[in-house]
């Protein structure tokens, strides 16, 4: 059975390692924070100037001066810090953030990503995405395998305006975990109960399928 968005987040949380500094994009990526393994410590960076971003506050503790990059009210954990946007993107570009998780509309078999514009229809702006994908050591995309029309989002080439070139390392969808290699997408894992055939059918880009594809362990 294909995962839901919580399942995707849960699987991505398994990539977290103790001591990592992590930036989570808006949408499905924010859910990753709910599944941090108990035995590790991870520090979340919010691009608007927070290190040690914590969970949503209790009603009484809501503070309008404390929001995340998605404009939601949040808290800050003990040992956290505040700084300005210039410093925030400085630390991002200088490679201090170990892992970036973000959504996408399209990913190409070379690791290109498009997630900020649909010409003529949706032009909300790129926000911090271009900085993040150009700088992070490790980028994981969390997205559905196909778009609402049923078309594959894993393509030979992106058709939408690019956010970044050759930067995505790993993709987790409701069907699979894939990595990007010099030879295209490589299928690493399939969602419990999902067949390799279904994944092949829904992946338009070049897909390397090993003999044995394990199920995700979540």
């Amino acid at each position: 059975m294909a995962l839901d968005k919580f399942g995707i987040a849960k699987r991505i949380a398994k990539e977290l390692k103790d001591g990592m500094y992590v930036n989570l994009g808006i949408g499905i990526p924010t859910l990753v924070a709910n599944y941090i393994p108990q035995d590790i410590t991870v520090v979340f960076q919010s691009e608007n100037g927070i290190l040690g971003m914590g969970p949503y506050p209790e009603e009484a503790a809501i503070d309008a001066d404390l929001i995340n990059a998605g404009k939601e009210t949040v808290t800050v954990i003990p040992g956290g810090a505040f700084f300005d946007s210039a410093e925030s993107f400085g630390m991002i570009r200088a490679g201090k953030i170990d892992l970036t998780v973000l959504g996408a509309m399209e990913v190409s078999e070379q690791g290109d990503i498009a997630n900020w514009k649909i010409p003529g229809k949706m032009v909300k702006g790129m926000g911090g995405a271009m900085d993040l994908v150009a700088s992070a050591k490790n980028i994981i995309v969390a997205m559905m395998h196909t778009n609402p029309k049923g078309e594959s989002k894993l393509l030979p080439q992106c058709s939408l305006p690019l956010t970044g070139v050759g930067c995505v390392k790993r993709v987790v969808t409701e069907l699979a975990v894939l990595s990007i290699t010099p030879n295209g997408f490589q299928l690493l894992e399939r969602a419990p109960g999902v067949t390799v055939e279904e994944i092949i059918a829904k992946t338009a880009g070049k897909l390397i399928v090993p003999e044995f594809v394990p199920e995700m362990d979540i």
Partner: protein
Amino acid sequence: MNKVFNNAIEATADIKNGATIMLGGFGLNGIPENCIAALVKHNVLDLTCISNNAGVDDFGLGLLLQTKQIKKMISSYVGENALFEKQLLSGELEVDLVPQGTLATSIQMAAMGIPAYFTPAGVGTEIAIGKEVREFDGKMYLMEKAIHADFAIVKAWKGDKAGNLVFRKATRNFSTSMAKAGNITIVEVEHLLEPGAIDPDEVDVAGVYVHRIFQGGNYQKRIERRTTKI
């Protein structure tokens, strides 16, 4: 030297049609509410506004969009404002969408007297068109220029009459850099204090950058997404 003004109306009185203004804040967080209301009252037109976002339809910079006082926006994300997106798609509003880090850094570079710099953000995308691309140590970078403005308008938590500013929590965002970059910097504060009330150790933006300061009030501090623990 007296930097203290009585209110937003007086502090923004000489802003003319066609001015370029940087406005601090991230979404509705830390925005200069009093000055935005004053700009609406003054009905100054054909503004070029540099701000990370465009507020929401009925608050923040959205108020200046409603009254069609803005000719051009320079921002990184305008998704929370449906009117903005509509004016952008219809061509009514000129928009430069700039990566958030590039926007913050270009403003910071103006504050630091640096005319241009190189960043990896946007290499290989449509925003690289027309820009110099250079390689450093095997990686490609775009040349971006500092961004200046006639006026920088920000809101701080505390400020003293010498212009020193202290910010609170996530409200630093673009405001600290903008305060330092503006040709004329106007600051509204929640608490206006005498020099000496703010410890030099505590200062986020030193008074040298600030030209006008006034005691603000009636802050709505609206929250776009009021999320709480489940």
